[in-house]
């Protein structure tokens, strides 16, 4: 006996899967006091060296919150290996070495033991106990010292932000010859530089965005430029092949505005993208008035630069 069974099924969806909910305002809209960045200068330093940290806080009126009282502290506890967060919860509330200032800019000395707490140097284990696991690097081979900035935005409520200057440490786990080569070739990170913000309207050539007049409801394109060489090349000890591998920094621009709507909250150039600029469409608000925009350029090793532009939205 021969039997043939044929099953034919046709599927049809009724309606549309509305999986993604509305999550409110995008991060690029400044509708409340916000940290835009904590700029470290230099962005990378060794133990015992001093870095200048500047917390950039903006308000919906477009002004920097220069008068906001802020407290600073150096984090002393590395995060557990099980966490995805950048810093340990303890560093948000406790485990701090306070820096005695209440300004938005501060000079911080990186602790001498920072490479043992947050870097590749093996932590000191108790006598008779097995050696402890050092901190693992990020994909750029970097280690970072968290420095907390605490801002009281409303009475009784604080907003915490962490600057994470990159720390220069020895190369761990690598054979000696590779460690020597690494020390020779590796150059400390430098902050990237914004080379201007331009705007293109009505398909015309982009012009300096400062003071630009943009029609209400118009769709324009902002362009953030950086000079050649901003994306630095640096060696990374690739543990999977146990050799030094050259990487190139990726660059990201975070876009902020007090009104209107950016097409993307962040744009940038990936590691293999040689671009010297990045563009983002912006839908001007329907109501005329001044609009304040900020762009924050970050490289993948932790360097930061900030620029601001004021434009007029006109009828």
């Amino acid at each position, binding site marked *: *006996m*021969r*039997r*043939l*069974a*044929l*099953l*034919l*099924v046709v*599927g*049809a*969806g*009724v*309606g*549309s*899967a*509305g*999986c*993604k*909910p*509305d*999550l*409110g305002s995008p*991060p690029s809209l400044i509708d409340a006091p916000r940290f835009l960045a904590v700029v470290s200068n230099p962005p990378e330093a060794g133990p015992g060296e001093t870095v200048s940290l500047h917390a950039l806080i903006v308000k919906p009126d477009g002004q920097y919150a220069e008068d906001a009282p802020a407290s600073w502290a150096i984090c002393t506890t*590395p995060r*557990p*290996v*099980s966490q*995805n967060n*950048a*810093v340990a*919860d303890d560093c*948000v509330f406790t485990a701090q070495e306070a820096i005695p200032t209440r300004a938005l800019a501060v000079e911080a000395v990186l602790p001498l033991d920072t490479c043992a707490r947050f870097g590749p140097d093996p932590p000191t*284990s108790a006598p008779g106990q097995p*050696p402890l*696991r*050092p901190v*693992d*690097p*990020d*994909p750029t081979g970097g280690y970072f010292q968290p420095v907390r900035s605490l801002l009281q935005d409303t009475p009784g409520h604080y907003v915490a*932000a*962490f600057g*994470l200057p990159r720390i220069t440490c020895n190369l*761990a*786990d*690598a*054979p000696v010859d590779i460690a020597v080569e690494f020390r020779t070739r590796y150059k400390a990170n430098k902050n990237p530089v914004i080379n201007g913000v331009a705007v293109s309207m009505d398909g015309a050539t982009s012009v300096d965005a400062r003071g630009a007049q943009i029609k209400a409801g118009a769709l324009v394109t902002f362009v953030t430029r950086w000079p050649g060489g901003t994306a630095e090349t640096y060696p990374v000890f690739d*543990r*999977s092949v146990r050799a030094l591998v050259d990487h190139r920094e*990726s*660059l*990201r621009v*975070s876009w902020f505005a007090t009104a209107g709507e950016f097409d993307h909250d962040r*744009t*940038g*150039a*990936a*590691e293999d993208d040689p671009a010297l600029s990045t563009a983002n469409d912006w839908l001007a608000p329907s109501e005329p008035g001044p609009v304040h925009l900020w762009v924050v350029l*970050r490289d993948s090793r932790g360097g930061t630069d900030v620029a601001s532009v004021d434009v007029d939205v006109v009828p």
Partner: protein
Amino acid sequence: MRSIALTCAWIVLALAIGTSTRTARAEGDDDAPAQPVITKAPQLLHFEEAVYPPDQKAKGVEATVILTIAIDDKGAVSEVEVASSAGAAFDAAAIAAAKKFVFSPAEIDGKPAPVKITYKYAFQIKEELVSLGPQINFEGTIKERFKKTPMPNVKVRIVDLDIDAVTDEVGGFAFQDIPVGTHKVELSAPMLITVVTEEEIVKGKKKTVTYFVEEKEEGVDEEEVVRAPRIKKESVETVIRTEEARRVPGTQGDTLKVVQNLPGVGRSSFGSGQLIVWGSSPKDTRVYVNGVEIPALYHGGGLRSTVNGDLVKSIDLSPGAYGADYGRGLGGLVKVETKNLASKGTHAIIAADVIDTSAMVSTAISKKARIGIAGRASYLDQTLGAVTSSDVGDFVSIPRYYDGQLLAQLELSKDETLTAFGLVSDDKLDRTIPSDDPSAVRKEKTHTGFWRAAAEYKRLFPDGASVVVAPSVGIDRNEVVSSFGDVPTEIHTTSGRYALRGAYRRKLNSNATLTVGADGQFTHTEVNRFGSITLPAREGDITVFGQPPGSQVNADDWTVNELTVGPYATAQVTVGKLELAPGLRIGPVLVDGSRLIPLIGTTPTQGYRRLDWTFDPRLAATYHATKKLLLRAGAGLYTQPPDPEDLSSVFGNPTLAPSSAVHLVLGGAYKLRGTLTLEVTAFAKYLWDLPARSEQATPALAQALDQDGVGRSYGGQLLLRQELVKGFFGWVTYSLIRSERRDHPDQDWRLFDYDQTHVLGVLASYQIGHGWEFGGRFRFTSGVPRTPVTDAYYDARSDQYDPIFGPQNSIRVPSFYQLDLRLERTITRPRYRLNLFLDVQNVTNRSNPEEIIYNYDFSRREYITGLPTLAVVGARVEL
């Protein structure tokens, strides 16, 4: 449409002798010779079916024509006359047919002679064709003794007549014209314990029987012990027959997906297809096909099973306290058995839908050899976009997969069989969520799969003992290459598996049966891992949906050899109404690893070797309180070797020892009616030596995982089940479960990530009639626990907010409700059978929350919802 048939009953109303003879008798003469006596009546040797007048048939007119048929002394019809007319058309048709009748000659006074008979020819329109001539007078159904499932391909032999038949797909068989008397009937099949019985056939009555027989398991007794229960090693077991499973709404005809609807099984998270059994981790539940362990019952996303349902005979789920013949797992046990291939002919099934296309072909090479092959390939990743919104892919992984199965069965002798089978399954997922922000680009490329090649030799000895030997080999592969912005994750795992199961079983006396066996397995696993140390996520990780992984990365490659021998013994002792099934499983767990500590500089690699002994006693008890009430209890220790992927010196801990659990079960079953049963079960599990991520910021070297974790799950389940009878089946399941973990001694107990307090399922299907069938499934489950975000801070380096969490798993995703319906129509024709169905999921279009999602600074919380109403229309044609 009704079929139309002619039925005719020929009734000899009067038997007359020839005209001359009748005349002589009418005149009467006392001196005349004695009247002739009919010593033998004519018998109809050839019946000719009349042609039903088409116009009358179309009108549905029925009629009866009474004929007078003259039969000559040779039995031929010499003349036909209408004694009672039913109209010209019917009369003509009846006369034409009757003229072709052939009779045996009648005899008068012992000599052939012409006679006349009266014959009633009835033209009737009936629902079904009833064949004339040979009549079925012995028929029946064969079912498995314990599962009550039909047994196809069973050879039913009437020994004294030397004739046989083979049961069809629903276990049915039939014989025609069996002589009156007592006959010896033998039931046999490769997977069946041969049974012999006697049946008496009575004249004019059809004998209809139902035989309950026992399949051979791992170790079989011979015929004389057939009626003794097989060793019942599982305290709680739910068995679903494939005929029911295929008709469960919401499963799209995939028989193995029915497991997700069984009691004690939690609802898997959206698109995962994980098996969450009695609050156990999905990785702790073992799945076996014919005794061979496979790594996954379902393809990625839980869309389909990895084994073609058309090759499956039964699915058994033991959520806990199972017997000593299985181990290496702390959770539940799913056993899939392939069916016996048809012993005759060639069979084929082709299936296609929006998800995948599959095919199955089986053929009988000879009377003793059969082979079947099946395969499936998917394309849902391309078709889903046509029916859902484009952002579905952001939340759900839709893999492309294929699988294949090869099954060969050979009867070496009457009680000796050899089965060989191969399984292959492969899942690939390649997706990119693009972004103009390099740190937000997400790439995911996974490739998982396995293959198995196995053989199973079974032999039944004359003394009633039996032996089963089942070697298998295979490879599991798991490759993950993903990136979240700049953070990569790469895992390449290849695991060679070599297993040997064997069992010897014999009856010790009338009340005791003993099985001894071994369940050995050797695995050689090679792992190469690079990237994030927090991906893939583990149970107990505190995170939120969509959160980027930690930026810390590392690399390691290592190999692990694991050997578990697993000798075991089980017995069944019957003492009155009490059946005890003690078991013991012991054996070494030998782990040999390549790397004890991470590579540091040029330090030589240091390997390690670890030997642990396990001692796992098991006990199941059954008390037949009454004919309707059965009480059950079970307990056992269970041991699970460490996962080779956890034995990394960088990402895990090479010194992990086996984890353990104790299962306790107490319950009962009450047969409300013949096929309606109520089962209630309470259970408790306690687990220890569970690996968990170290909570330390700087744990000891090579100890990213600790083994201080403990767990407990407890609760109860209820099953009210109506087995398939008169076209109806259904069940109501309810589970009340609490499952908790404590990862480290200094921590509090927390809810298990997969904990679901309430799981309710109501399922029913009914054959309305005229080929229509309607079914529905309603599900309610508590939402899974999640850890709330109470605050957040700004990470200025990555320009993102990181969450600050509240108590772990202290909130839940809202409860899940869903109603699925299925409408099916079956049309049967002599040459084909057409089956149409409509399977509608989420009929009410409820937006079921599936996961919690936050805005960028965690100040706002919303829910990702599941799929809307989804209708699947299908057709099945059997030719």
